[in-house]
């Protein structure tokens, strides 16, 4: 097996606060293979974005990586000096944020921002960088890129701006792109275009993607594998079809049941009772135990580690002996 582009091992992200240390990400591990699209889903506050920020080294203080390791192509990056990490950002790991309207500096043309990024990571001259910027804009589907390159962000629509943001994230041909809810702020009609574009671009360039979202539709359509996060932990991770069609973790089951379907008629959508625990009050044992319909004694005391069930890994005691008791 080839070296994964990204390998996260037992990552812990903590926030020291006055009321004690909060653990936003609690010992999670996953790999992303070259060219693979891995979706990360979960409710707000499940630690998805924190994981992304930790990987690219942009956790906002006082948040910090309190444990674990992050490897990029066999090279450990979580303990790099700030300057070394800066050179990796944009060059080897690109990132796309949620809101294209505010991701671009309003006072500079898109060309200036593209050329700035290109020249940060390559030795191209201004003329070469400009030519490259025009190529990139063409590639992300901006019409008349040789003219639009001198336009300011406010002269683009939301969807067009997100295309520019994609061009910016991809301009140094990174090995991995972290897309943190890249379509949440866009119109529904534009969302599909941007996702398709992201998928195609990454396929062409062989770029791996960590796609953070809470939109299961996007995941089903785009991702190869999916990790379901709950309260800072990975509940279930596996091939996207397995997780969606045959969810094994009771939380994933509930999550999938809550998605309306066009084919099946249902009077009521499934709802998981209760809500995700706050970081200050994560229960002992399995974090999902207060809401789990299949809870039993062991869940209340011992935290389950991900255990292999078929092609997926599930952090649930129901699968402790490898058998599919719950199915």
């Amino acid at each position, binding site marked *: 097996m080839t070296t994964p582009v990204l390998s996260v091992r037992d990552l812990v992200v903590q926030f020291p606060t006055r009321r004690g240390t909060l653990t936003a990400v609690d010992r999670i591990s996953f790999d992303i293979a070259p060219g693979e699209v891995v979706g990360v889903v979960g409710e707000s506050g499940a630690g998805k974005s924190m994981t992304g920020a930790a990987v*690219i080294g*942009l956790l906002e203080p006082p948040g910090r990586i309190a444990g674990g390791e992050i490897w990029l192509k066999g090279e450990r990056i979580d303990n790099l000096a700030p300057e070394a990490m*800066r*050179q*990796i*950002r*944009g*060059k080897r790991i*690109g*990132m796309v*944020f949620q*809101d294209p309207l*505010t*991701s*671009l*500096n*309003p*006072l*500079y*043309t898109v060309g200036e921002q593209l050329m*700035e*990024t290109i020249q*940060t*990571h390559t030795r191209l001259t201004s003329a070469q960088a400009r030519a490259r910027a025009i190529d990139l804009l063409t590639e992300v589907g901006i019409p008349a890129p040789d003219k*639009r390159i001198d*336009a*300011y962000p*406010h*002269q*683009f*629509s*939301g969807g*067009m701006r997100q295309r520019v*943001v994609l061009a*910016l*994230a991809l301009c*140094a041909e990174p090995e991995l792109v972290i897309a943190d809810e890249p379509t949440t702020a866009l*119109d529904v009609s534009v969302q599909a275009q941007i996702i398709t574009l992201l998928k195609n671009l990454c396929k062409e360039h062989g770029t791996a993607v960590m796609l953070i979202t809470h939109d299961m539709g996007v995941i089903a359509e785009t991702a190869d594998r999916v990790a379901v996060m709950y309260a800072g932990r990975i509940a279930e991770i596996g091939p996207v079809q397995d997780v969606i069609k045959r969810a094994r973790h009771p939380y994933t089951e509930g999550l999938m049941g809550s998605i309306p379907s066009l084919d099946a008629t249902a009077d009521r959508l499934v709802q998981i009772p209760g809500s995700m625990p706050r970081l200050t009050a994560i229960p002992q044992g399995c974090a999902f135990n207060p809401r789990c319909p299949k809870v039993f004694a062991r869940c209340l005391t011992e935290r389950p580690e991900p255990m292999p069930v078929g092609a997926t890994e599930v952090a649930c005691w129901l699968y402790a002996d490898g058998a599919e008791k719950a199915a």
Partner: protein
Amino acid sequence: MLLFIIDFRVNRSPFMIAYVVKSLAQAVLVMLAVALVAFSMFRFIGDPVSNLVGQEATLQDREELARDLGLMDPFPVQFARFVSNAAQLQFGVSYRQGRPVADLLAERLPATVELALLSALFALVVGIALGVYTAIYRNGLLSHMILSVSLIGVSLPTFLIGIGLIWLFAVELRWLPSFGRGDVVKIGWWSTGLLTTSGLKSLVMPVLTLGFYQLTLIMRLVRSEMLETMRTDYVKFARARGVPERTIWFRHALKNTMVPVMTIAGLQLGGVIAFAIVTESVFQWPGLGALFVQAVQFVDIPVMAAYLMFVAFVFVVTNLVVDLLYFALDPRLRGAGPASAH
């Protein structure tokens, strides 16, 4: 410093021309309103005829003089005459000194302008630099010290700072002169203290005194705006693109900080020129402020009126310049408009 951040490739769109015309019209309107106030001073503060004629003038003398001065004309005619004279810089003759007010102003103007511009420059350059520094190293020891000292600048009255400086540098250390402009050099009608050692030495304390308050104000404004900008998404995204921190500070954050800072700095510059009165009194600086204080003491209305017009003019011009600088700074105002719909 500003020149390097501001992008002067302003396109001359019709939108911009309309904006300039509107700003100019507003400026003219403000000047007319101030002229009305200045003009009414003549009519309502004392009687100009009594101020001019001697004790033994007859009623006929007074009437003749009033007619000669145009005081019998209807109000709009008199006001129009005042405005047209003012536009030609004719403000009449000082009651006290018997010389044309325009000459008096021209004599005093260089002292005030040199003092005010140097103070503004000092406040702007040091204020922006310290503001950026304290924003970047916001938890540093030096930053905390700078912020504490700046509280003094905000809370101590100007004259106290001036007197304190005089005590330290003129009385105790004897490094700097305590009053006056020192030796000045005449260049045409302009007299400058910038070319002689004693002139420069004389400038130091008044410039520090006058600029200190503005400096602290600008510094605190730059700091808070800069901290605000450093939290924006585009700064986060610039970091994610691997842009070096230095470039983020000075290219991305500082330029976005400049828009609100310019508004305040522009108004402050007007204030510095207009209200140098206190500093000029403390250092016996032979400028416009000192002239105005004397004029008030002797109810020298032509001088007061002219000074009022001058102050208004300075404010109007700085506001106009700030309005135009917005265009240079912020492309969103240039009105090219979104080319594609949302």
